[in-house]
């Protein structure tokens, strides 16, 4: 079953005061994400991939088109605060900059307490809640002692990103939108972050959408890749098809330019 359906989604930004100009950031795109599926939205900066993510996260309204999550239109059918809370519980975001996701004045675990409070059945007492937090940290490979009581500047970028994923273990969302989750962590800890997200999918059946410019990452993790260019999806399909036999000019150029490890690029 499709967990998320995006139909004819369009977002137009208007610029200027005297002479209005319109920019089609996202132009009539449609796709769907199934249960337990990992998809990637690949494109360069300005291709509209983050705008798409923001609309799915219900942060900015679309100009036209529909986004159906679990069969409900997220911009029309969510009316009460309670329904919005429920949506926030089920759709979770992991952003690019783990530094910006934390308030430097509060301990790191605050984000985890917030997640606990968002739960439908919050633990009855503080002790139980703390156990839940500790359990989630262990799941993402962090010793709770290393994190609890610490402030964001005291832990590394890779650890911050892991704590964000620990939130996912508490909330058990149905859909995770991961916007460049690995571009600000060291290459040596990147693999760990990807593995954690894959484990979530294995055990919880979580659907994950990666937003990235890194075709290598997309090729490695996805079941389906959508290549975006100037607000449109220009190529879509199985990673092997998109990467090994691209048909659109843009994806051909992109694939042909990425340095490879096991083969030399043509024309150097």
């Amino acid at each position, binding site marked *: 079953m499709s967990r998320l359906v995006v139909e004819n989604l369009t977002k137009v930004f208007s610029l200027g005061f005297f002479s209005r100009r319109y920019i089609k950031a996202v132009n009539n795109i449609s796709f769907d994400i199934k249960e337990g599926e990992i998809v990637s939205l690949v494109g360069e900066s300005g291709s509209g991939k983050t705008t798409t993510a923001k609309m799915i996260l219900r942060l900015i309204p679309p100009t036209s088109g529909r986004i159906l999550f679990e069969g409900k239109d997220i911009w029309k059918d969510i009316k009460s605060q309670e329904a919005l809370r429920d949506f926030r519980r089920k759709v979770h975001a992991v952003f690019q900059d783990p530094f910006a996701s934390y308030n430097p004045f509060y301990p790191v675990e605050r984000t985890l307490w917030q997640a606990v409070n968002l739960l439908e059945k919050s633990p009855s007492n503080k002790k139980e809640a703390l156990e839940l937090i500790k359990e989630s940290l262990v799941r993402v490979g962090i010793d709770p002692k290393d994190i609890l009581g610490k402030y964001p500047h005291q832990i590394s970028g890779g650890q911050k990103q892991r704590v964000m994923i620990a939130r996912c273990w508490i909330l058990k969302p149905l859909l995770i939108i991961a916007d460049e989750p690995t571009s600000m962590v060291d290459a040596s800890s990147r693999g*760990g972050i990807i593995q954690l997200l894959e484990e979530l999918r294995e055990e919880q059946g979580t659907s994950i959408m990666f937003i990235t410019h890194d075709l290598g990452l997309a090729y490695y993790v996805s079941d389906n890749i959508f290549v975006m260019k100037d607000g449109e999806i220009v190529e879509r399909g199985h990673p092997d098809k998109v990467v090994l036999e691209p048909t659109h000019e843009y994806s051909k150029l992109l694939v042909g330019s990425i*340095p490879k490890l096991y083969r030399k*690029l043509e024309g150097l």
Partner: protein
Amino acid sequence: MENVKAYYKLEEVTVKAVDDVSLEIFEDEVIGIVGESGSGKTTLSNVISMNIMKPLTLVEGKVFLKINGEFEEISSMSREEVKKKFWGKEITIVPQAAMNALMPTIKMSKYIEHLAQSHGIDKNELLSKAEKRFEEVGLDPLWLKRYPFELSGGMKQRAVIAIATILNPVLLIVDEPTSALDVVNQKIFLKVLMQMKKMGIVKSIVFITHDIATVRQIADRMVVMYAGKIAEISPIEEIVQKPLHPYTQGLLNSVLTPEPEIRKRGITTIPGAPPNLVNPPSGCRFHPRCSYAMDICKEKVPPLKEIEKNRKVACFLYMEERK
């Protein structure tokens, strides 16, 4: 380079950024230096070109440069002397983020004029040479009359390389030249670099980066640095097919490129973090993160030894002492 030790001497501590490194750069080759941030790659490039300024100090070792068929020891000269005699003409370094050093309000041609002035060359002669060089890197010579803010990132990087190589240096050192560019511009830049070498504008290129896949595209040999030391030196094909040092293996296994081989083998991570170079670990500096670590690794520093033809590695796994 022979047994070079270059440390950053700060008031209270000493950072051993390059520690006992010997390296030979051949004529007519592209050599790639890779490693994590803080592994001493950039310091090494500064030592090669004798761009040594406080707090960086050359503690030990010698650096030689072959000029007109004879080796000259440049490490015995002062920075000023090397700068005057060799920079630009024999050896050129394009530092990290060099394109951002272009002042947005100074015309490109002004940089050429400055260069002519400092090397005592006729201004117009160099300008016409610059026009030709701009064309060779795929830029319209008209851009010389423009300001840097009018150029895109990829064009700026090509303009920088055109200006840097205008006096046909023998050795060109480029530090992370492609990290700020998108993949399409990266490829164009690599193409320009290789073309320069084919045309004989530069003879040898030292390419410093953390991106192994890029190095693999252009380099003949690869040097892997870890915590201020060389872990492995090897011809590029061999190191990609069969990395010897456990650190090189870890590094290669964390590479994500869109290739079926990568999907098949999966990615692994190197546990832990690079060490602090004020107080590096004893013995082999990689031993706290190494899954093959033996007792000897904690006690002795593994020497860089040639174990196969042209392949050098600093690891006890490949030496007799392991027993």
